[in-house]
């Protein structure tokens, strides 16, 4: 049998590379480390059947998936100055100190990937970083393939007392253009046929990944979908205080007033199709995505479906009035996932990963009190964490 | 509606005071009537045909 060896010229590499390099650091739980420019957080997952952990086709949420407990991959990237994401906010994770309570990662081993952008532009850099982070997360879980699990949870539809109220989750995903997408099977939310009914297990099993980098505290990183507290709560309560009717994914930042209303009405229709008596409506990011949530709330209430909304506040700590980005009178049941504007006490970390300087040039090691706004996912509006706000 | 207490409903965002002068006259006259009336907060009036 012959063998062929084909040679190609080095100048094939003339095309600008999306990334110039990546460094990897493994940080143990609670080390006094501050991580900056964090893009996403991903839980290591792998499927024994060989299908991808973060599929771009087919259907997730069936069969079996392995997760590695107590480990999270954090990806960091300092976008090149020229075309930064439009309103990019500094995104920080503190693994010790007062900021540690605002993200869930201080108790885990963090595999921190710091990417150096190449000259191919921000979108290419981001795409390469995101792909790499997901691949690393899947790779890390490989060791689970040869071992027995310590815990096995079964998620399936079970019958329940029809007298219990039916509750669905309406989960918002943003799409306001490049570097501002949440992905459904690798497709930006705006092109994924939303609002759309999905199996709750699809959300838990890697169908939704994060590509939104404008907000920090209001960002929903990938791990918040993998470990989604709302879906888990609804499974837990199924047969007890409610019947879990299902999940609708809907888009935030519909572009025109007509589109917004149409999408809100369609989301309410999906909720009706699920037979929901009540829905929890979650929010993603800030600005007019809050209007989409409020219109959806109103559309559901008008269809006779009761609503509870989860969202974050942007209240001036010196003001005595809570500030919501938008509101309708039908939104009379709101969970506050915290006030973005409150400051977290100053802390001096012993080591910095991600980047030594914050986006505004301040040294990350001496940044002073930092607003909640800048801690990754701290005020996420899917209710993943315990942060709230109250009047004092 | 935030803060606005006297509101006359116009035909559209693109032409709140109406397309032609006749329609405009009807809307403005309705507005003047509303200005001459004591109201509760957030009062919205339609234009009589």
């Amino acid at each position, binding site marked *: 049998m012959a063998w062929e060896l084909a040679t190609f010229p080095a100048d094939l590499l003339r095309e600008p590379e999306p990334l110039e390099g990546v460094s990897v650091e493994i940080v143990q739980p609670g080390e006094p480390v501050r991580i900056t420019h964090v893009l996403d957080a991903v839980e290591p997952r792998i499927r024994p059947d060989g299908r991808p952990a973060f599929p771009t086709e087919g259907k997730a949420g069936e069969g079996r998936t392995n997760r590695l407990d107590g480990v999270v991959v954090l990806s960091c990237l300092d976008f090149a100055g020229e075309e930064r994401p439009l309103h990019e906010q500094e995104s920080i994770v503190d693994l010790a100190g007062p900021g540690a309570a605002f993200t869930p990662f201080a108790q885990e081993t963090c595999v921190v990937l710091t990417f150096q952008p190449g000259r191919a532009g921000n979108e290419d850099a981001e795409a390469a970083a995101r792909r790499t982070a997901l691949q690393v997360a899947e790779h890390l879980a490989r060791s689970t393939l040869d071992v027995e699990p310590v815990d096995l949870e079964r998620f399936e539809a079970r019958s329940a007392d029809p007298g219990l*109220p039916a*509750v669905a989750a309406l989960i918002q995903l943003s799409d306001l253009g490049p570097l501002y997408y949440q992905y459904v099977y690798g497709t930006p939310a705006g092109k994924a046929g939303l609002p759309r009914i999905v199996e709750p297990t699809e959300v838990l099993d890697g169908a939704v990944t994060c590509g939104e980098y404008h907000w920090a505290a209001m960002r929903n990183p990938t791990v918040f979908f993998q470990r*989604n*507290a709302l879906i*888990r709560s*609804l499974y837990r*309560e199924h047969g007890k205080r409610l019947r879990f009717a299902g999940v609708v994914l809907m888009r935030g930042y519909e572009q025109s007033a007509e589109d917004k209303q149409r999408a809100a009405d369609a989301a309410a229709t999906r909720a009706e199709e699920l037979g929901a008596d*009540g829905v*929890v409506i979650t929010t993603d990011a800030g600005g007019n995505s809050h209007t989409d949530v409020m219109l959806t709330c109103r559309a559901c209430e008008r269809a006779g479906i*009761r*609503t*509870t909304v*989860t969202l974050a*506040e942007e*209240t001036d*700590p010196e*003001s*005595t*009035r809570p500030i*919501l980005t938008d*509101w*309708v*009178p039908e939104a009379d*049941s*709101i969970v*506050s996932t915290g*006030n973005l504007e*409150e400051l977290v006490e100053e802390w001096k970390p012993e080591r910095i990963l991600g980047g030594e300087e914050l986006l505004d040039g301040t040294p990350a090691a001496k940044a002073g009190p930092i607003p909640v706004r800048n801690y990754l996912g701290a005020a996420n*509006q*899917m209710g*993943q*964490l*315990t*942060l*709230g*706000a*109250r*009047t*004092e | *509606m*935030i*803060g606005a*207490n006297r509101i006359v409903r*116009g035909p559209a*965002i*693109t*032409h*709140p*005071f109406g*397309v032609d*002068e006749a329609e*405009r006259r009807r*809307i*403005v006259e309705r507005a*003047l009537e509303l*200005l*001459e009336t*004591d*109201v509760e*907060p957030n009062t919205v009036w339609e234009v009589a045909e």
Partner: protein
Amino acid sequence: MKAVHYVNQFFAGLGGEDKAETPPARLGGAVGPGRGLAGELGEVEIVATLACGDDYFAEHEEEALATLLGYLEQESPDVFIAGPAFGSGRYGYACGTLVAAAAERGIPSVAAMHPENPGVDTAGKAYVVPTAVNVAGMRDALPRVARLATALAQGRDLGTASDEGYLPRGFRRNYFAEKTGAERAVDLLIAKLGGETRTEVGGGLDRVEPPAAVPDLSETLVALVTEGGCVPQGNPDRLPSVRAKGWLRYELDGAETLSAARYESVHGGFDVTLANEDPNRLVPLDTARALEREGRIGRVHETFYTTTGNGTPVVASTRFGREIAGELREAGVGAVLLSGT
């Protein structure tokens, strides 16, 4: 540690309603209910009592405030205590205003009054301990006031309103709940489905008292204001199409109509084709002039005001409104036709 106590003329023993015009006074040590308070305060000593007539304070607030704060600052107390005012509105107002001003100056301060006393809303960052509605609640109130005042004097970090016994001041403060936001959402929804609606945060719309009706439009100067982005052709002052940071004014110079040749709309939030064909569709000058000629309205104000209402934060548009209204009022305008898009 030192405290200064404020009471009104009645509790200072100077007299009743007949002495409500008493100007501010500084009295030594604890006076009236201050003596009971001193007993509860333990290691905190009331070094001075300030008093003022309720009517005097209401009618000469600036002066009274300045004088009383002057006395207060001379004492450099560790805590300032006002009241209890119970249900007395004027006394409560004076207490609230004083503790707010003292707190602004860095003096830890606490007032005491009934939760529905209008003085509660004037207390700013200072604390208010709730009391009964009348003096029968004195014995109950004093130990609670003393406890909070002592904590403030010691510089101790205070806990929540319900833990420490003061009225919520209206500030939103983050906290870590027992349950995740998701679990709390499920709880709230189940409660709502069961007929009990609760919320962790209230929305709301601004309420502005409607001004009284215009008595006589034929005598009234009427102004035209728009957020439809109507500007002279070419947008010489570069009004933004979105996120406008301000507003503009233009002279009409007696024009009878807004002609398409001289005006256009730069609003980025809707299709401006119709408005550009005839700007009167946004700002009805032609109709206003006709009504002026007919005597239905007095005069059209020769200055019109414009901005782009697209992506404007409420705080900004509130400022625009205030600023424009200020100018309109100066000009003697009695009514406004505001076109919204």
